[in-house]
């Protein structure tokens, strides 16, 4: 069951690396939220009930519903539907993500320990790398936000790995989620979106020298 969920999560990452439409990004973030919720529920059987409810609410309500809802709202408000025409073509994005997957498999084998399986570690590292790739290879602020949300999901998965030993770390991961989602998405939607209509990062290069 766990392996199935992890592989499904990895598939969403490969898909996100090659996607070009913002609505697809938002849908994939919602799917990742549901998958993270299920993974946490399968893995965290020894965590106390209060903590478990907190995690369930955060992953399901926040990650799977609220954040994607907000993303759809931003898309409607800014009317920007696709990635920047100067962004890396999706084929190269796919190739890069596969390189990241190979690197993750290698690193997970090297880092293997008693906390989790190689598959779990691979998916965690792959998520972090895909998030970074999205930020580096795309030009629009929306894509950068998606990249950051993917990194967030990777961090959350890593915290789930240690969750049974140190449940506090998951709560802190949740704190990061809430903090960033509220702060970044609010500024993103209300300020940046209305100031720079096409939301390209080239608009954000006035502060030089």
């Amino acid at each position: 069951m766990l392996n199935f969920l992890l592989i499904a999560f990895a598939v969403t990452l490969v898909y996100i690396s090659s996607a070009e439409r913002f609505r697809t990004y938002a849908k994939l973030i919602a799917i990742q939220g549901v998958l993270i919720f299920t993974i946490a529920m399968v893995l965290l059987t020894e965590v106390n009930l209060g903590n478990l409810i907190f995690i369930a609410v955060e992953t399901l309500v926040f990650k799977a519903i609220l954040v994607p809802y907000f993303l759809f709202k931003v898309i409607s408000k800014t009317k920007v539907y696709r990635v920047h025409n100067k962004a890396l073509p999706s084929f190269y994005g796919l190739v890069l993500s596969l390189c990241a997957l190979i690197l993750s498999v290698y690193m997970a084998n090297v880092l293997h320990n008693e906390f989790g399986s190689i598959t779990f570690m691979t998916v965690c590292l792959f998520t972090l790398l895909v998030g970074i790739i999205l930020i580096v290879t795309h030009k629009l602020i929306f894509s950068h936000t998606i990249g950051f949300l993917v990194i967030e999901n990777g961090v959350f998965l890593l915290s789930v790995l240690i969750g049974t030993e140190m449940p506090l770390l998951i709560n802190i991961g949740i704190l990061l989620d809430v903090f960033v989602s509220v702060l970044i998405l609010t500024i993103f939607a209300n300020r940046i979106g209305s100031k720079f209509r096409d939301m390209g990062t080239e608009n954000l290069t006035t502060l030089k020298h």
Partner: protein
Amino acid sequence: MILYYFIIAVVLSLSVLFVKNKYYTIIATSLFLLIQSLFTIYVVKNIGLVDLAYFSFDALGAIFLTLLTVISIASFYHGLKYFRNRITHRYFYYHAAFIGLITSITGAYLSNDATLVWILVEATTLTVSVLIYHEKTTYALEATWKYIFLCSIGIAFAYVGILFISLSGKGLSDLSFASIALSVTKVNPLYLKIAFVFVLIGYSTKMELFPMHTVGIDANSVSPTPIAALISTGLVNLGFLSIFRFYIALSSSSIFEWMNRIFILTGVLSLLVAAGYMLKAKHNKRMLAYSTLENMGLVAIAIGLGGQGYYAAILLVILHTLTKSSLFFQMGQVARTLHTFKLDECGGYMKRNPFGSGVLLLGMFVILAIPPSGIFVAEYMIVKSMITTHNWLLLTIVSLLLCFVIYAMSTRFMHILFSKSRIEESSPLVIKVSPWESLTQYIFLLTVISICFYRPPFLTDIISQCIAMLPK
């Protein structure tokens, strides 16, 4: 005691937002600074005390807290001057966030737990963003967005670092720095290496160190000068302290030498970037921000060298705090007098404000470590460490890059001071700045200069206590 401090700070900060009265704001902020000062005295007098289990009053925390309190008082005073003749609709947000920022930095300085430090660093991002966005211009929006976005990535990276320390072995009961230090000898060093790199990258957003230095430079260039002074000192020191506490905790592990090499590499790259961009700098505050990057690069190199380098690193951070805050405060006065931060449009400052020009001139000598600057002592120790450890290549690179920095900064300072002024003497734009406004800056700079001649025993003792846990 710290619980009362936090409660009072939160109440005062929120009350400023709700009351929305200018005079109440000044009284509440002054009251907060009084409490901050009393709390600092309490911490200094009770070194060794543990409060609320998660806060330890140690030498490192005490030094940086004292500096923060001193700079905060000066920053509040200059903030009042900054608001003169300005629309004050964001006055209340400014002061509420100001109190919040100082409180969160204080908590982070004194925290003995890696996760709590992380939470409080996150809180500083939130509060300082309000202050960066204060002027609500397009530039401010750009800088705020970059600050929040990059700091959030940095915070996430630092958190990954903490997670890797937790994943390194089953012997870890909690994430206090003491527990980490006890467990690191028994765990997989590869995990520790990954953890250290993530922590270094993550907190470099706050320390204004390579590779995430850009975020602090943009923030410094658009925020009000009293806040830029606070960002480039209090917040930079927080980044340094967060990384240094991890370094101390991991210093008994097998990756100690490796961490030193990483520090030297980061330091050299920071110096390289600082020297390169300083030669191109066309904005006064950006130039000072790159100078922070240069100084933090030297701090990283000093730590990497070890031995006497530790002492030099802490001394350099202390002296840099006093010097850089003075220069930022003075740049505020330059902007009020010459109506610009753009270097090309500056000039004739010596004629307009001779007393303030003295600060710029003195500050230039001090920050460039030209004797009798106290920073010279710290940099001399770093050079001596390079020679005793036979790091000749490093010495050559650092000396060369410092020459570029000295050239870039001195020519720019001279331009501001002595080149022909853009504004005519009879222009209604000419604003006289009171000489008293430069007094705090002279006090700070003369303190730094006095260190060149005399280092008081309490300073030497407290720095020695800070580095006592590190290998000799």
